[in-house]
């Protein structure tokens, strides 16, 4: 990579740059918008709000009710028992209706007071009072309870939690189900009915196999996933609440690594990781003057306080201007450092290398999220004033931040990818480290541009600053370039770097066929 190019902030740095070349070669200009339009066709999931969920639930209930000629309440009981799978209800019911009825507590006759207690009066089995027939109810089994006692029984079950959905006759020897019609008729208050119907709604999401709640904070949307929907193998979901997560394991989005890798990686650094991230994210001694310097931005380019002003890389503490990349794990250097080190310790060193970088990107992403909120709430306003722009003309800035946030997430997980990439796959490791290094450099440039170069335009000089147009072109360019690079990076890593087998590996970085293999 041309070093001068890295440093030239005053020109549009993406020109004539191998980072740029590298992915733009042979690229179809038409797909530059594909990340944006993915929300439309080919999307494998559907975001559902409460009304959508209820609608779906009522639809399956109606379907079962029609086919089996049973009440909606009975259909509900059956569906709940079979995890809301219409297919499973059909299968079990038509195989042996009696067995199914018995298992879920459905009697063979309709709900009415049976003739167990002959006569026109009956004793309630809970309060022991004697009532005229019309004030006594049973769920078809004939065990008589008065309206008030039913109300109390239902109410205490509902307040005990979702177990109320499988409510049975109060008589302990009886398994007759008390369905939602009974609840509707006999519940004491609308509040109870509301709670019951909320439990029912939740059960539809929590017990069916295709729907999950969005794990985003305070989010009430559910996401239905159609795994057979074609497209790539990604489980990534972007909820309407703006939270992105993996539908399969419910962790944050973690492309390019799979759920298994995420779970191994996360269980590897459980206890200390939070504090470790915190410490890593805060302060380090300046490598020149040793004064402690606090990281407050998100990019890795650090500048020490005056008078030192030393510029260095936050991760490796190397001089920023002699810095190419530092993503590569150099085992040889570690071994050289202490030849007597035990294997286990070597392992720890390797792990630390990857963990530090994983954590640094994690906290950098957190900062970028906070920064983006500040951009949206404060900086955009200022720019409207100082540069005389309309809000829509400034969307490229939030686009850039969204890109940074997404890329930090990918870069973070590439360090778990690197950790688990077999040591003996030398060619793959070389290619991986090259690609990761390029990604890191490119993202660093975008992050720095968005974070630092924007500042000069926030000051009000009374008139718009000259360079704003150039800044816009540069930031837009970097955003686009970085997006495309990361998309390809993800695809290449998810394919297990399979290009390695096909192509010659001597000229990595010059002829890497990522662009043409993309099709």
């Amino acid at each position, binding site marked *: 990579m041309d070093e001068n190019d890295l440093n030239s902030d005053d020109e549009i740095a993406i020109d004539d740059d191998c980072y740029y070349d590298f992915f733009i070669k042979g690229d179809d200009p038409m797909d530059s918008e594909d990340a944006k339009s993915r929300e439309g066709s080919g999307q494998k999931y559907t975001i559902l709000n409460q009304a959508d969920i209820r609608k779906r639930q009522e639809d399956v209930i109606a379907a079962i009710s029609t086919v089996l000629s049973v009440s909606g309440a009975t259909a509900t009981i059956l569906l709940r028992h079979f995890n809301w799978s219409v297919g499973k209800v059909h299968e079990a019911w038509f195989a042996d209706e009696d067995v199914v009825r018995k298992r879920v507590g459905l009697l063979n006759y309709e709900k009415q007071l049976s003739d167990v207690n002959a006569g026109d009066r009956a004793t309630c089995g809970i309060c*022991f009072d004697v009532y005229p027939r019309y004030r006594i109810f049973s769920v078809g089994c004939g065990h008589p309870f008065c309206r008030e006692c039913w109300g109390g029984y239902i109410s*205490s079950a509902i307040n005990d939690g979702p177990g109320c959905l499988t409510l049975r006759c109060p008589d*302990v020897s009886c398994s007759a189900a008390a369905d939602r019609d009974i609840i509707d008729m006999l519940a004491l208050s609308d509040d109870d009915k509301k709670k019951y119907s909320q439990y029912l709604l939740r059960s539809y999401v929590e017990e069916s196999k295709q729907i999950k709640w969005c794990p985003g904070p305070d989010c009430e949307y559910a996401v239905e996933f159609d795994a057979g929907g074609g497209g790539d193998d990604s489980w990534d979901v972007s909820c309407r609440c703006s939270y992105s997560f993996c539908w399969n394991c419910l962790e944050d989005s973690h492309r390019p690594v799979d759920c298994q890798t995420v779970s191994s990686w996360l269980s590897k650094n459980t206890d200390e990781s939070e504090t470790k991230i915190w410490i890593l994210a805060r302060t380090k001694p300046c490598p020149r003057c040793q004064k402690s310097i606090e990281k407050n931005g998100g990019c890795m380019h650090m500048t020490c306080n005056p008078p030192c002003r030393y510029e260095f890389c936050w991760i490796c503490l190397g001089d920023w201007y002699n810095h190419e990349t530092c993503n590569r794990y150099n085992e040889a250097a570690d071994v050289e450092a202490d030849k007597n080190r035990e294997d286990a310790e070597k392992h720890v060193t390797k792990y630390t290398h990857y963990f530090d970088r994983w954590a640094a990107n994690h906290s950098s992403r957190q900062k970028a999220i906070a920064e983006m909120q500040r951009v949206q709430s404060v900086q955009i306003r200022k720019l409207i004033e100082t540069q005389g722009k309309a809000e829509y003309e400034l969307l490229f800035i939030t686009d850039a931040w969204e890109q940074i946030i997404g890329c930090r997430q990918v870069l973070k997980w590439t360090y778990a990818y690197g950790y688990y990439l077999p040591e003996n796959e030398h060619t793959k490791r070389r290619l991986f480290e090259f690609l990761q290094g390029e990604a890191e450099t490119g993202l660093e440039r975008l992050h720095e541009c968005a974070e630092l170069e924007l500042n000069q335009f926030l000051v009000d000089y009374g008139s718009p600053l000259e360079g704003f147009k150039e800044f816009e072109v540069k930031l837009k360019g970097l955003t686009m370039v970085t997006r495309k690079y990361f998309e390809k990076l993800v695809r290449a890593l998810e394919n297990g770097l399979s290009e390695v087998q096909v192509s010659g590996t001597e000229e990595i970085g010059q002829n890497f066929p990522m662009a043409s293999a993309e099709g």
Partner: protein
Amino acid sequence: MANSNLPRRIIKETQRLLSEPAPGISASPSEDNMRYFNVMILGPTQSPYEGGVFKLELFLPEEYPMAAPKVRFLTKIYHPNIDKLGRICLDILKDKWSPALQIRTVLLSIQALLSAPNPDDPLSENIAKHWKTNEAEAVETAKEWTRLYASGA
């Protein structure tokens, strides 16, 4: 008077407990609180508790019968499902409670628990372990405790 608005169900249950007591069980309400019962259960024959007289207290909470009665052994007893404080591990006193159950059914269930200790669902880990590793010795300890603490003297 505090007992004036006692639900009819409690009055009826109390009357029946007094007039037709279950064999080996007596339960009578306290004079100043009709929701509080003094209970005595005789150790079932063929059990390590045979010959013992066990005192319990039973209280009917405000929500009774929608909520289960609260029952506790007052007499010290060596039993895997009963802890040092006399609390009892019995499903119908917890999640399996139904308002169609009664004081009588609860006490009969406790009596049955004395006949058939269940170390697989223990409340007292140590006793349960003892029961599983050396049942004969555990039974001896239970008999010893019965003689020491439940001789009814």
